[in-house]
């Protein structure tokens, strides 16, 4: 082939749908980028000479004689230290009025880390929020989403986690963020004086939904640059992954694919896993930790998006408003951090695992007592005590406005145990009771 494909201009589009257009072209590579009348598009199907392009901005106004130019490359991001402190759109173009980034151009959505080269995550990420640090400790290299209804303050909690975690870089991938939330993040980071540690890729509700599909890959390419090239600890925030998945289903629908559960594409699991599995502890010391948000509809976690997410991520954090104390708490039953076993009792005090479990068990007993109460039954003395315990526990440990160190969390919990229970009621190893039971 003498002429390079990307120099050739095609002007005859044969088919246009809401998200895709097709034309006859040769020498085109799969996944390659193209522009259609200046709009960015990507090759999603090639059949002989027929090439189908997915137009990120949508196909509104594209005529059949639109100019199509193939760029001869997959989507890329220019990476360098200049990324720090900047805001970009889904294509990696600055949206903060600053100059273009100079640096090495890297393909986004690159290869996976060889599993044998990974290191086991082992560093505790302390957030000060006891509902997280005590019951669901986060570890660097972990991937974990907040499962929350749209009305819950997940973006606020995520922002405070990001600021308290001692990360070298924080990368925000905003998908379908409302403009208000976008400005919220910008303000919070600005006010905390950490803007030079932040890189943001933002697609707001004002941008076309299909563009969102590029956001996680852009954010993670930047993350890999800092974690691999500079051995930095990078925290990636992805909000909201439900809107990302919705964009996937739009595209698959336009391409006439057979939907599986909840009209999501059959490849949803693999698509999400490709993103989340970028969380890693590198052997040279850098790490990528992903904290995401998956909004639920009415708390339903059996929907395909939270369900597939739950199977991929290393746990999930649930927020719930506790009417007994009038605060938003991290729900101890439904929240889970799978990697906590790597740090609790090892990086934290030895009694951490047993205290955590005992408290949750007693909190479960309180839930049973509450059911009894609601059904009009008499409560035993033990039931009464669990209810009082639960209220204190909710207020002093689970509430998201708590900000204390891990040891103090443990001491507070031992204090609650001794206030309401006898040692044999908490089921903890005797030697730990001997050492820590608050007299």
């Amino acid at each position, binding site marked *: 082939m003498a002429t390079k494909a990307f120099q050739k201009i095609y002007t005859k589009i044969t088919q246009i749908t809401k998200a895709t257009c097709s034309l006859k072209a*040769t*020498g*085109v*590579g*799969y*996944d390659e980028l193209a522009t259609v009348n200046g709009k960015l598009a990507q090759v*999603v*199907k*090639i*059949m*002989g000479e027929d090439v189908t392009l997915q137009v990120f901005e949508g196909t509104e106004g594209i005529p059949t004689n639109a100019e199509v130019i193939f760029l001869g490359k*997959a989507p890329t991001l220019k990476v360098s230290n200049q990324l720090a402190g900047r805001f970009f759109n889904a294509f990696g173009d600055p949206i903060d009025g600053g100059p273009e980034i100079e640096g090495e151009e890297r393909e986004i959505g*690159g*290869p*996976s*880390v*060889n*599993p*044998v*080269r*990974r290191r*086991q*995550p082992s560093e505790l990420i302390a957030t000060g929020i006891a509902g997280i640090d005590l019951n669901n400790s986060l570890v660097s290299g*972990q991937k974990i989403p907040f499962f929350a209804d749209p009305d819950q303050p997940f973006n606020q909690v995520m922002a405070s986690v990001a600021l308290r975690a001692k990360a070298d870089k924080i990368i925000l991938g905003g998908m379908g963020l409302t403009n208000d939330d976008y400005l919220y993040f910008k303000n919070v980071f600005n006010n905390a004086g950490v803007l030079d540690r932040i890189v943001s890729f933002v697609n707001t509700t004002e941008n076309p939904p299909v563009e969102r599909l590029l956001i996680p890959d852009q954010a993670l390419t930047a993350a890999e640059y800092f974690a*691999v090239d500079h051995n930095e600890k990078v925290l990636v925030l992805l909000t909201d992954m439900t809107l990302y998945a919705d964009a996937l289903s739009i595209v698959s629908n336009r391409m006439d694919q*057979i939907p*599986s*559960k909840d009209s999501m594409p*059959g*490849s949803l*699991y*693999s698509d999400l*896993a*490709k993103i989340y*599995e*970028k969380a*890693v502890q*590198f052997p040279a010391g850098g790490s990528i930790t992903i904290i995401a948000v998956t909004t639920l509809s009415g708390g339903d976690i*059996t929907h*395909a998006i939270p*369900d597939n997410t*739950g*199977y*991929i991520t*290393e746990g999930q954090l649930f927020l719930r408003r506790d009417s007994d104390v009038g605060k938003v708490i991290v729900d101890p039953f439904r929240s889970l951090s799978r990697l906590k*076993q790597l740090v609790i009792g090892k990086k934290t005090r030895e009694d951490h*695992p047993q205290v955590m479990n005992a408290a*949750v*068990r007693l909190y*479960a007993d309180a839930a049973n007592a509450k*059911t*009894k109460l609601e*059904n009009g*039954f*008499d409560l*035993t003395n*033990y039931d009464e005590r669990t209810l009082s315990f639960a209220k204190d526990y909710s207020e002093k440990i689970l509430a998201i406005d708590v900000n204390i160190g891990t040891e103090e969390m443990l001491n507070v919990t031992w204090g609650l145990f001794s206030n309401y229970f006898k040692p*044999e009621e908490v*089921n903890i190893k*005797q030697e730990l009771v001997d050492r820590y039971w608050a007299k």
Partner: protein
Amino acid sequence: MSTKGKVKGIISNLVIVTVDGPVAQNEICYIETGNTKLMAEVIKIIGDNAYVQVFESTRGLQVGAEAEFMGHMLEVTLGPGLLSRNYDGLQNDLDKMLGVFLKRGEYTFPLDEEKLWDFKPLAKAGDVVEAGSWLGEVDENFQPHKIMVPFTFQGQYTVKSVVTEGQYRIFDKIAVVTDSEGKDIELNMTQKWPVKKALTCYTEKPRPFRLLETGVRTIDTANPIVEGGTGFIPGPFGTGKTVLQHAISKQADANIVIMAACGERANEVVEIFVEFPELTDPHTGRKLMERTIIIANTSNMPVAAREASVYTAMTIAEYYRSMGLKVLLMADSTSRWAQALREMSNRLEELPGQDAFPMDLPAIIANFYGRAGYVHLKNGATGSITFIGTVSPAGGNLKEPVTESTKKAARCFFALEQARADRKRYPAVNPIDSYSKYIEYPEFEEYIAKRISPDWTKNVNEMKTLLQRGKEVQEQINILGDDGVPVDYHVTFWKSEVIDFVILQQDAFDKIDSVCPIDRQQFMLNLVMDICRTKFDFSSFTDVMDYFKRLINICKQMNYSEYQSEAFNGYLKELNEMLTLETAQK
């Protein structure tokens, strides 16, 4: 001349290749792009168009790219040196790959070509042999690794010569056999086998009956699995599937453990990489890694290779079974494998079945489980593959196609339950819904009576009945209230709680409690059943609760103490005093 082709169409990892000669279903081909060759498998043929699934990303692939067909299906290389290795789903040695990131089109040889093995001949000149016959033996991590006549050989052969005892590399000639037409064939220590074909070098596959000890009480005591048995663990996320599976693989009384991490989290595989070289096998005292093979095709690795990974694992298991070894194969999770099938079926635009899964999913699953089993080899030895798969039911709903299809194929069902997990009652195996069909086998009953004790089965059944009864009583208490039922009901309920807390629950992260050998399980079951048979007489239900809570606490401390140690016996004494006190009052 091998068949060649040219790429005609590309949709994600489904590529259509126009071929110039014959191609076979499931044949392997390599497609050239840039400087790399991408491995692919034929999954459909129409006219001279072969539809192939590429095991890698197809980014940048162009129409017109050259493809070469290899004339064989996806194969694994079998020989000494498989143990302790970490492979991807296509049996590439992950440790041999350079760099932190996986490179597309990088394929590495699964064995060590230079390592010298101590070979001992088992056959001699003049012996009549057939596929699977043992020619010799090398010591592989203290396992007698048999060098066998290639499984692809048909009919009978005569051994012409076998090398003498000594050190050889895997590709050195170790024997010459002569076929029925008098042609000599040189053999080395390796051979190949297509993964999607079952390896059936055995004479019969009787019903399995020998207990496979796992050290997990809720399995061994309540719903045992046997050598050569099949089981599956379905459970919503967060119910402890992987923890349970890791516990089984660490503690099970097997010679070889193969773990297929199929489309699951990479960090979970890393956990195995980190822990297994440190942990010791409770049965032999050697490092766990020595007996383990890991097939890691994590969720971010190519989808088509994920489907292949479970077959790769099963074929390696069959290879070791043919040596007369006890193999345990774990696959986490078979749902991801089914999803890989779904993605491809979808791209092929096949008419979908339930939840868009392919129509033949139940048959594929049943076939796969069917490859496990306890076998009599042709030389009279026995070998087994015990297979345990996890299932990740969408939305935690057990009425979805993968769970339902698996339920028909597997004989043990360990149902993980969200409600138990929420209450931190781990392992969250529901004791009433779960089952083991092997308990009903008379040959198992006979075996277990000899292995443990004649009254074992009776005790276990009594325990299960009491659990069931406890659940019923609990429901009644929930409806009628604590004082709406006789105090006796509370005693029954709390007896079932003793069983739950002391037998069923087990702390997988405690050094002592995590492994419970069968003699200790027997002791604890007897102890708990003695408590359950004791007649108590309490005046109020609050007394019942207080008493049993204390009792459970003592039993739990026993579980945390070294068996028969001073501390253990101290708690036992305390417990007996508590029991005599309560019964003496009467």
